[in-house]
């Protein structure tokens, strides 16, 4: 077995697609119309054969209150790896992205958390090189 899909619940698939593609820089992978919604996935910009992110419609009534509760406590629903956390944070802020947690280093990882405009918080994380010596 191997991982090939992960998903975020989004309040509006087209809006989410714009954000994840245009702002975050993910690449469109699959886009299949399914009646009211689409099967809509993206991959990482440098990883076209990697795990796909599904932009899943939040059609089930349990989903919105679940998302609201996570956001209220600042809990990210997904985490993406970045090479340079500070540069990525600066880039996203310049594009108007709102952060709920500024970059901070905690042990082996530096993280920040932002709002994906579709009802989720997303964490970006950079593994910190152990300092020499």
């Amino acid at each position, binding site marked *: 077995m191997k991982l090939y899909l992960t998903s975020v619940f989004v309040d509006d698939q087209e809006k989410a697609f714009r954000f994840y593609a245009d702002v975050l820089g993910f690449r469109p992978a699959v886009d299949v119309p399914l009646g009211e919604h689409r099967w809509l996935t993206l991959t990482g910009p440098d990883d076209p054969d990697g795990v796909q992110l599904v932009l899943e419609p939040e059609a089930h009534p349990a989903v919105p209150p679940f998302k609201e509760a996570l956001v209220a406590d600042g809990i990210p629903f997904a985490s993406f790896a970045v090479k340079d956390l500070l540069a990525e944070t600066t880039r996203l802020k310049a594009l108007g992205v709102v952060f709920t*947690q500024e970059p901070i280093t905690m042990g082996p990882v530096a993280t920040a958390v932002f709002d994906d405009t579709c009802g989720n918080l997303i964490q970006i994380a950079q593994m910190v090189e152990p300092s020499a010596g």
Partner: protein
Amino acid sequence: MFKALADPTRRAILDELAERDDQTLFELCARLLMRHGRTSSRQAVSQHLDVLEDVGLVLVRRDGRCRRHSLDPGPIEHIVDRWLPGTRDGGTP
């Protein structure tokens, strides 16, 4: 307030809030875990925050859909003023 300060986890929460305002519960829990080795559940941290909010040491504000926590040193300043008058203003380190 002294009861609120008597708990080491609550003092650690205040230490972390002193470093940065407007933290979410998620950020605080991560800080407590990674920097203080405290494995308190989110629910436990949330209850500690309620205690600190009740005595006025932590301010909670709603920012969009997020709850953010900040340190309010006001109650501590009253203590300093009462027993250590003159040390807050004009004092140099």
